[in-house]
């Protein structure tokens, strides 16, 4: 009853009820959330390694990381995703469906992870790590030399100085910039539509085309917005945690 009313109100044609629209969007949102989380888990630490390489005294390594960052930031993410997806086939001649992997999840359940999902996640991780690396580098270089010198005179090792004195301060300083990237990532996950990964935007786009209705777009916009507000809220909590000092 409510569904029927909702569907009429929303102008959806009879073949798609509101509840089915929402459940399809919901399953898309789960995939969106997975890409989002996996990307952060991979790119945040990878960025540290790239930043350290970029600042390394080993010149070829620093140069290579510079090139990497430049390329990742200088070419479209959409292009990177597509290239990554097709590389195994075009370069190595591997049939793409062979790259679907089965993983044993909790409780012995077998889950199939399609190559398109893996490719999207790797693509996002490689791309976002480049941005994070530059943010980290800026943060690390903003720590006054005097702190390094004080630590040196007090006898801290290089590793101790970095882990105990530099990194915690860097963390506070880069939070706003990292937050920006994280918010961008929420929406960038929609780029997965180029590989037809069944995340929320891909699904919504298909429904819009089939139903000749703008409503799913409006709903999707609200969901993305809600997602980013959640992220903003969480980032605010983390920032508050570091509010106890300023420099």
């Amino acid at each position, binding site marked *: 009853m409510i569904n029927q009313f909702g569907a009429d109100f929303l102008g959806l044609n009879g073949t798609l009820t509101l509840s089915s629209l929402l459940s399809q969007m919901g399953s898309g949102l789960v995939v969106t959330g997975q890409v989002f989380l996996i990307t952060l888990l991979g790119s945040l630490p990878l960025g540290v390694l790239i930043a350290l390489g970029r600042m390394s005294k080993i010149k070829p390594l620093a140069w290579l990381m510079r090139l990497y960052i430049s390329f990742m930031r200088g070419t479209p993410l959409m292009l990177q995703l597509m290239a990554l997806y097709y590389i195994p086939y075009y370069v190595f001649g591997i049939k793409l469906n062979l790259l679907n992997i089965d993983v044993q999840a909790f409780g012995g359940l077998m889950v199939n992870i399609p190559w398109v999902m893996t490719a999207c996640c790797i693509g996002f991780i490689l791309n976002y790590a480049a941005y994070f690396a530059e943010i980290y580098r800026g943060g690390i270089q903003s720590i006054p030399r005097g702190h390094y010198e004080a630590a040196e005179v*007090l006898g*801290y090792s290089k590793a101790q100085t970095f882990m105990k004195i530099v990194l915690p301060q860097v963390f506070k300083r880069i939070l706003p910039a990292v937050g920006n990237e994280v918010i961008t990532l929420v929406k960038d996950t929609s780029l997965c539509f180029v590989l037809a990964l069944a995340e929320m935007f891909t699904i919504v786009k298909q429904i819009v085309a089939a139903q000749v209705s703008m409503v799913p777009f409006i709903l999707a916009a609200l969901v993305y917005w809600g997602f980013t507000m959640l992220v903003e809220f969480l980032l605010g909590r983390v920032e508050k945690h570091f509010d106890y000092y300023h420099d």
Partner: protein
Amino acid sequence: MASENILVNLEHARKSFGDTEVLKDISLTVEKGEVLAIIGPSGGGKSTLLRCCTLLETLDGGSLSFADVVVTTDDGSGAIYADKKTLAKARTHFGLVFQNFNLFPHYTVMKNLIDAPVSVQKKPKAEAEAKARELIVKMGLEGKDDMVPCELSGGQQQRVAIARALMLDPDVLFFDEPTSALDPELTKGVLKVIRGLAEEHMTMVIVTHEMAFARDVADHVIFMDGGVIVEQGPAKQVIENPQHSRTRAFLHSDS
């Protein structure tokens, strides 16, 4: 022999930045319990001298040792530094107090004090805390244990920095203009603390622009200008009755 009492021995120190020679053949010794003040005009090389002594800069030439730990030797061809382990050992002999404090802003006062003893010297935490609490009282910082540096005045921060250096029981404490970032009122508190340390015969090398303080607290004064020691001697003599015309000009322009 008196040499047993020599804690710092620097001979024929030379240091250049590019083409500018900043230290030209500087020699000095610091004896146990001595307070040495270094004065002189801006750009004279005082900070560079202190930074070389505290291993933040490397000497081009000259020899440096702390008690029996030899940091550099020089057979005439330039300074040859000892291995890393020896340098680490040398660092346990001295502390340094910076002009701009350089406290760790994310640590509380207590954590600033105990972190190096606990994570560098591997002292038990309780022992370090007990010692820190003593120093906090001694520095007039009661009740500030859990504050972070940004909640303290400059003078209080500098006293925390002094306490942080003292936590590691250095034989000699170097100060680079410890009060020049402070207004006169806050300066007093810091100078009082340093005066107190002098009365306990803490060995100190202090770069300062506070002439009255240098005269009253230091045993010896070195006047540096243009990378050389122009004049040195007992504090009262150098400051009240300077022999060299450059020293006289400096002392008159300064006050």
